[in-house]
């Protein structure tokens, strides 16, 4: 075997089980790849000692034939997951030096099943962003290169301010970049408005946001509690299915997690989708949609038709209200969730002349501008006199959006197909500096899914004219991730696995 980092998670698992490969060897290969890829800034913390210790333990288990479903599989962990004794800051300066004394439910389940932690992944600060540029630790460079640029040019940019290189998307930008650059076999991510699906689409990887309540939020640094959901990013649909099975499950420590059995998602791969009804919502055909996105979408429709699915035109009439309503609900919850970062108990503290002064100085220094903006928006929309006009109306809209989907599913629709993003990846420093809404528009196809609490998967389905990956999104019925995996598998096969970039870094 030449480069084991090129294996898919499923291939590596099989090689480990059949003892053709050791976990230590596999982990070591990833650690070396991470070291060489530091300039991409995907990992903000590397945990080689821990990784090798875990790999060693996995090898012992594998030798005895006692390995778990993820035994010896090296993964990257998004920085918002609490990892015991390891840097956990949601890439914010306000959590400066914070190392929790506890492990998030999702990551403990991964370790329970034998996975190996390589390190913590970069992300937008508190998961607020669509390009990974709001991270306190700086932007992540996508392994994909802009058209006409070569490795030599790109290495120069990496050494500088990274301008002109492509964003990996966000907020799970580190996760997507690490997976696409073969710096792990899969990564945990999280999705509040599109933070798994958009970066997956930008990097030619697969990402699924499961149904709200499918994974425990316990130990995930909260952004917007009613929207946040954990999920994986990996290189194939199958790899996502394998990871999600370990990540999902009921947790009595999270009152919003659902007590329902977790299926073996991998088994849904390869299932026939003949006769499945696929809804095509007309409202997602937004004004000014580029020809390449139109083509991507119609290619997707053709793939599914060819596999025997029935294509049905549907209407989700409240779609266009989702983004503005999302930008009320999410900041409102965030403004309250982030109140605990006050300099009193942990993280950053900037001394002040009295308690208010300490609060103000600490939060001013600790939060980046996008986070401050959202705290201010959230505080405003919850204020006396504005609450009914903003928050209450946004909640009503949310109910209507949910009902749109319910009506579609009541018609017998099994899943809904849309583009994942309005465009391919853009350049670092290119968007949102003048008008933050420009950046927010990235989430236009994904936020509806969070607002309705539904599962959504992004799967690569083609390349743009510039040779950059484009993804399609499938939206499912509540807790029917299995159907999404089946259908996504069909698209993946029809479109052909994306050929990820060779290492130029």
């Amino acid at each position: 075997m030449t480069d084991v980092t090129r294996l898919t998670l499923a291939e590596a698992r099989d090689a480990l089980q059949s003892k053709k490969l050791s976990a230590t060897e596999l982990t070591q290969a990833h650690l070396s790849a991470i070291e060489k890829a530091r300039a991409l800034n995907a990992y903000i913390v590397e945990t080689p000692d821990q990784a090798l210790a875990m790999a060693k333990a996995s090898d012992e288990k594998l030798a005895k034939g006692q390995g778990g479903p993820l035994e010896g599989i090296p993964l990257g962990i998004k920085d918002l997951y609490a990892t015991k004794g390891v840097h956990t800051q949601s890439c914010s300066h306000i959590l400066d030096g914070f190392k929790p004394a506890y492990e998030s439910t999702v990551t403990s389940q991964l370790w329970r099943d034998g996975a190996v932690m390589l390190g913590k992944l970069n992300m937008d600060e508190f998961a607020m962003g669509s390009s990974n540029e709001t991270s306190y630790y700086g932007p992540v460079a996508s392994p994909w290169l802009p058209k006409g640029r070569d490795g030599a040019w790109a290495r120069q940019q990496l050494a500088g301010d990274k301008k002109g290189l492509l964003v990996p998307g966000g907020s799970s930008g580190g996760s997507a970049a690490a997976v696409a650059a073969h710096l792990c076999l899969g990564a945990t991510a999280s999705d509040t408005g599109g933070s798994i699906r958009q970066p997956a689409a930008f990097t030619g990887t697969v990402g699924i946001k499961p149904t709200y309540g499918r994974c425990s939020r316990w130990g995930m640094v909260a952004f917007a509690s009613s929207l946040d959901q954990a999920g994986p990013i990996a290189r194939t649909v199958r790899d996502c299915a394998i990871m999600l099975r370990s990540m999902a499950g009921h947790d009595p420590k999270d009152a919003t997690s659902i007590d329902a059995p977790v299926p073996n998602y991998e088994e849904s791969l390869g299932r026939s989708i003949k006769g499945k009804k696929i809804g095509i919502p007309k409202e997602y055909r937004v004004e000014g949609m580029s020809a390449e996105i139109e083509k991507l979408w119609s290619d997707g429709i053709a793939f599914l038709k060819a596999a025997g699915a029935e294509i049905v035109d549907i209407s989700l009439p409240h779609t266009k209200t989702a983004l503005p309503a999302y930008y009320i609900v999410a900041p409102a919850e965030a403004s309250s969730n982030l109140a605990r970062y006050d300099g009193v108990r942990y993280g950053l503290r900037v001394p002040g002349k009295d308690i208010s002064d300490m609060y103000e100085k600490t939060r001013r220094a600790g939060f980046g501008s996008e986070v401050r903006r959202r705290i201010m928006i959230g505080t405003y929309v919850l204020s006396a006199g504005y609450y009914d006009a903003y928050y209450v109306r946004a909640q009503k809209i949310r109910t209507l959006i949910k009902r749109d989907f319910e009506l579609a599913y009541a018609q017998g629709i099994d899943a809904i197909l849309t583009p994942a993003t309005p465009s391919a990846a853009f350049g670092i420093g290119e968007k949102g500096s003048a008008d933050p809404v420009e950046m927010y528009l990235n989430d236009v196809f994904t936020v509806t899914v969070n607002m309705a609490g539904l599962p959504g998967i992004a799967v690569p389905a083609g390349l743009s004219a510039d040779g950059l990956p484009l993804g399609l999104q499938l939206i499912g019925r509540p807790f029917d991730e299995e159907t999404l995996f089946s259908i996504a598998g069909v698209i993946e096969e029809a479109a052909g696995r994306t050929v990820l970039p060779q290492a130029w870094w």
Partner: protein
Amino acid sequence: MNAAAKPSKLIKGATGDWEIVIGMEIHAQVTSQSKLFSGASTEFGGDPNDHVSLVDAAMPGMLPVINEECIKQAVRTGLGLKAQINLRSTFDRKNYFYPDLPQGYQISQFKSPIVGEGVVIVDVTPTEQITVGVERLHLEQDAGKSLHDQSPTDSFVDLNRSGVALMEIVSKPDMHSADEAKAYVSKLRTILRYLGTCDGNMEQGSLRADVNVSVRRPGEPLGTRCEIKNVNSIRFIGQAIEVEARRQIGIIEDGGKIDQETRLFDPGRGETRSMRSKEEAHDYRYFPDPDLLPLEFDQTFVDDLARGLPELPDEKKARFMRDYGLPAYDAGVLVMERASADFYEEIAKGRDAKAAANWVINELFGRLNKEGLDITASPVSAAQLGAIVDLIGEGTISGKIAKDLFEIVWMERGADPRALVEERGMKQVTDTGAIEAAVDEIIAANPDKVEQAKAKPTMLGWFVGQVMKQTGGKANPQSVNDLLKRKLGI
């Protein structure tokens, strides 16, 4: 609209009569092993930050999970207040920054509380009863405590109380005097203690009151109210209302206006003073807590809890009046504490219930109060006091001797009253021969008094006293009376 005060409740100002209007928010700590949304202990005391979970300290990524026992306690309390139980309620976040509030918000129930309207029947005096409406009862988290006296430069925070479950019981503005307010709190505390849902311990802060006071001319609309925060004794509640009402009347009579504000009662100075200015007025930005689903349960859950409720003070009082023939006042005093009522019943069963009530209320309670003891710490047991009542009833000892006996039993814990009477020769003399001898002796020794008594029969008392003295108080007073009357011919 609340009922108007009786004229006797009005207070005189310089320019005429004023009526006080009082409403109260009582914060009652729920009796439970662990906190409202975490598994940490609710035990009082301990070193600072001994009882703090990751949730209480608001560590990143921590989530609240509701403690079912606290929900049951709130429902039980609602049932005890004859209140509407809401099968669906929601939790909201009340947002503000304070070092003893780790989350930066308090989880409370703002829009849909678990308990709706109810009533409390309050005995203000033995003859005066009022009904105070309960507006709502909701569950919320307590905050921690800031400690400012540990260091000259820094403040410290103790999170032991952070997250402890409180029931906020909001009354309607149905009270019109300090006495009514005090009686309401006292009655509410009695109900909570009966239910076992709050220990009612005001010194430890398990029960605190925010008192809303306003004044108005009789018959006029409600005046502007001030809220006196965190008053922690019934006596202080009374004092705070008195001084606050006087303050408001003074301002209005001087042509001023009352500012709606939060005030603090300073018992040392006997005054209330403003806590925070209007510029610092909080906008709490309430919104539904997205970490908690709406709280829903069915009527069966409520019915099961209702079946498990103990007899409550009002019902117990009615039963005491009916079954034991007690006057309302006696019954009311006996049911104030569940333990006292139980103590009384143990004595009253199969005995003269009225005599038992007198002994419990007058002798036992009197003595306990004097020593500052609780009924559960009474040196005289129900069995012992029952034996004393028996001894009187049988005519074995006189009422006067019984008081001496009570004192001996009090001092010599565990002694058997019946044995004591035997050992110490305290038995009442009912042997008419012995009494007659004493009577004869007194009559023979006092011929002048005999003459006087014949003219003035009230002199009989003097003879009774002499005979009792002669017999060491042990003679049966009835026999003494009868014999004296016969022998003196009156």
